[in-house]
């Protein structure tokens, strides 16, 4: 049974896997360089290994392990592309909307920006039903507005100019 499970959940070694390991390897080297730049305070116990030692051990561990994964992937045949489920059309546009939402939150404010962003995000990930798009946007906006600013009195970003004035109608 366990062998069956092992086969079923066998990981695929793909190019993406190697790229991730390579990214970890490069960033580890960069952070190791930063670690060497850290100052060593003069005072304190002479037995203290200081602020550099622990991160240095960890980064070296990350370098070794990510290198091992890269070598393993190069040596191994590409077993399958199991993890490569296709992205829906505009998936990455949807992700970009999320970051844009975070960027504009301080300017446009939560009340006005959230329904616009929700609608656009759902559209980007492939929702086409008007009922889901409009109904879903309104329900989500209502749930969030009632839960956070109204019930929990969280001061969500109000935005600037007219957006700020609009937000005062709600919280």
């Amino acid at each position, binding site marked *: *049974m*366990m062998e069956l*499970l092992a086969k079923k*959940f*066998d*990981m*695929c070694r793909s190019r*993406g*896997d190697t790229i*991730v390991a390579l990214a*970890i390897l490069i960033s580890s080297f960069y*952070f190791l360089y*930063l670690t060497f730049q*850290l*100052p060593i*305070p003069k005072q*304190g*116990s002479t*037995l*203290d*290994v*200081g*602020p550099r030692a*622990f*991160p240095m051990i*960890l*980064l070296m561990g*990350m370098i070794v*392990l*990510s290198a*091992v*994964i890269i070598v393993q992937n190069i040596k191994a045949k590409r077993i399958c592309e199991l*993890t490569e489920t296709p*992205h*829906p059309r505009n*998936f990455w546009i949807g*992700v970009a909307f*999320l970051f844009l939402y*975070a960027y504009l*939150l*301080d300017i446009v404010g939560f009340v006005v920006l*959230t329904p616009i962003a*929700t609608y656009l995000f*759902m559209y980007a*990930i*492939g*929702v086409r*039903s008007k009922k*889901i798009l409009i109904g*879903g946007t309104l*329900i*989500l906006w209502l749930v*969030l507005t009632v*839960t*956070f600013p109204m019930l*929990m009195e*969280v*001061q*969500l*970003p109000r935005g600037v100019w007219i957006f700020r004035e609009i937000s005062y109608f709600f919280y």
Partner: protein
Amino acid sequence: MSGVISGILMGFTSILDPLTIGLLIAGVIIGLFAGATPGISGTMIVAILLPLTFKLDSIPAFVMLTAVYAVAVFSGSITAVLFRTPGAPEAAATTFDGYTMAKKGFPHKALGYAMFSSFLGGTLGAIALLLIAPQLARFALKFGPAETFALILMALAMISSLDVKNQTKAILMGIFGLFLAMIGMDYMTGVERYTFGVPILSAGLHFIPVLLGLFAVSEALRMIQEDPEVKQKIEKIKTTLPTWEEFKRLIPTYIRAFPLGLFIGILPGVGATTASLVAYSTEVRSSKTPEKFGTGIPQGIAAPECANNAAAMGALVILLALGIPGSATTAVMLGGLILHGLRPGPLLFTLYPKFAYAIMVAALIANILIIIMSPAFIRFFSNVVFRIPRGMLGTLIILFCVVGSFAMRNNMFDVWAVLLFGLVGYVLERYGYPLAPIVIGLVLGSLAETEFRRTLITQGGFMGFFSSPISTGLILVSIFVFVYPFIKSAIASRRGLKVGSGKE
């Protein structure tokens, strides 16, 4: 014994107020919903709920989270039985016989076995929690920096068993988590590390946005990859509990699965998923008719469901008694406890006995509520909730995480962090890098470093780690635990080679 009884009474009295009881019931309902919805794990929902608990006192807040945690382990089996889609990873083994039994026309029986076995495993586990945890905590009071570091080392060594299929990646992710904990001011010297001049980073990378990003946002991004307008429809289902005769036939299964699940749960970093799979394979091995497994037999449902709920309680034992997370969800709860100003571990029972016993009693009640509330939930769930389109559910999760992380400190940095770690988590998991080790590393990282350095200073050097039998024993166990999977897989691959060459 009288101490335990008075503790239990104290636990009961401290949760006997309308708010706490209301939150306990809400926690059970949320847990049922979270576990039963594929894509929403118990870990994710506990992480999402954490920012909402900041305004609450610690007892009602953690009574709710404990109820969510305890119940979500069971409710994953609902979709495992009905759709062959485990709502939570812990229910993966339940699909083997649960779904087959449902397909044969007995979904009500399959759900009944799952529900009763979860109730039994969880309730017995909660009783064990009440009996074991205080004793374990009393013993752990003898722990100094060397012992504490050795204990953390053991928890970290267990990371390699979190993903038995790819231990290198699991360890790499564990170290990555430890490294994330290094960001911020070094408390022993005041030196700022990797803050890039961002003032908020001086206090370190906040646990909650990282967690929300890794578990909730990444999962939601995966969820919306499937058809976002899809909603599943199923018939109304009734649940039938096992009869007395059926229960009697399952007693040997429970005798094997319960202690196994509890023990695996107590091991740091292993968790309920492993417990259910090991219990299932043990049941297959000990059966006189192993060929019947997979064809829809009660033992195939009872063993994993009893074991995973017992393991969930086992993980709570070490969380409360030693402050070590036994699973990803308990790692999230550990972060939450720290945020509420509580330090889980041996002192919890001395300084906050009311809190510790309240949590354990809540776990017991939540497990009992499984059997009372689940039948109605299953009817409701099959009728209404499964009609929510995935796109809408995914969007709700992401927005909840973004707003929830902002609500924590009223800071936009946390919003950026939640999105960034969501993307990181999505990419990592897409290529087979497990996320749970990152959380364990992040939670234990700064404590590990502090205790490591404190041991060096107070014990006068590296030999200080071997200054007591407890720390020496724990370090040796850690080394064994760390090395064992590698030796095992090396032996297995050599045997495989021999068999292969023999065939040729």
